[in-house]
């Protein structure tokens, strides 16, 4: 799926990927790929500035660690990030339910004039 299609949803997707524990950038990308069965296959580079954007907004907190000679930056959700994720989930459920109702024809349209 192209990055433009996901624009506006990427923050929510990344927050969801981090919900179960801290991850580094590449692991966030892999989590998005695997949980969407490969549908969300963004340019890997885009994930890093996006994580910085979430950190700038105070929704995630980044920290450095070292293992096996590698410096690695991992991110975890902040309490503001958890609240934002809950809000985005509620908004998405409302939006997708309304879209499904319209697109699947599960709604009663007014009779044509």
């Amino acid at each position, binding site marked *: 799926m192209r990055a433009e299609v996901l624009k506006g949803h990427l923050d929510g997707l990344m927050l969801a990927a981090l919900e179960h524990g801290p991850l580094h*950038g590449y692991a966030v990308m892999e989590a998005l790929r695997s949980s969407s069965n490969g549908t969300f296959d963004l*340019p890997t580079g885009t994930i890093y500035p996006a994580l910085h954007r979430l950190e*700038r907004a105070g929704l995630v907190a980044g920290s450095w660690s070292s293992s096996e000679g590698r410096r690695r930056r991992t991110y975890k959700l902040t309490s503001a990030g958890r609240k934002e994720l809950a809000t985005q989930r509620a908004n998405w459920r409302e939006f997708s339910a309304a879209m499904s109702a319209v697109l699947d024809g599960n709604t009663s349209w007014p009779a044509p004039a």
Partner: protein
Amino acid sequence: MAGARLTVLPPDVHPAARPSLEDYMDELAGGLPASRRARRAILAEVGDGLADTVEKHQAEGAAPEQAATAAIEEFGSPRALAAQFATELAGVTAHRVGLALICTGPVVGLVWLAAFIARGGGLGWRGELTAMLSAIPTYAIILALVVPAALVATAGAGTASRRLPVGPRLAAAAASFAAVGCMVGDVTLITGLIVSTLRGVDESWLAAVAVLFSSVRLTLAVLAARRCAALRAAAA
């Protein structure tokens, strides 16, 4: 890029994969008008991600050079990536500059006020201050413009960035404006003091402290304005 190479690739990256990855990282570094520390942090993070991506392609059977080429393709243009990082750095830098100006403003102002009181022997300082503001009305105008601009700059990051419709580029522009305003204000105060000293007015040691404080802030404001303007220009 001039000077020492900032490229930070993990040591376990295959030697055959390194040249093209290092070229990529050099181009990324070249598009980041950030401090050396901030640039190193970004390069270390991207380098780690590139190494992971190369490993994945190698595990799928690609030769190291091919794996590096595939990883670079996955990461996208280094210039575009640098612009996205510059946007984030612009917001964070604007936030810090805005906070710094808001926090230091009252301190510098109080030192100048103390200097004026000391010059007046503790008497009639209100008159001194009023005289100063009326003599240099631009200073009051500067304050009226700098304070809101610094507040807008703080919305470049943190809680305010989630609540106010201020993007990183606007925050960086506000930070540059506030820093330039402070520079004008400090130059005005220092110039006024020099003129009054030349006219034979006895200044206290507090005046020297005020000049020192203003000079330090002036220097930092010049650096901050330049950094914010550069990041804003490089931002996506």
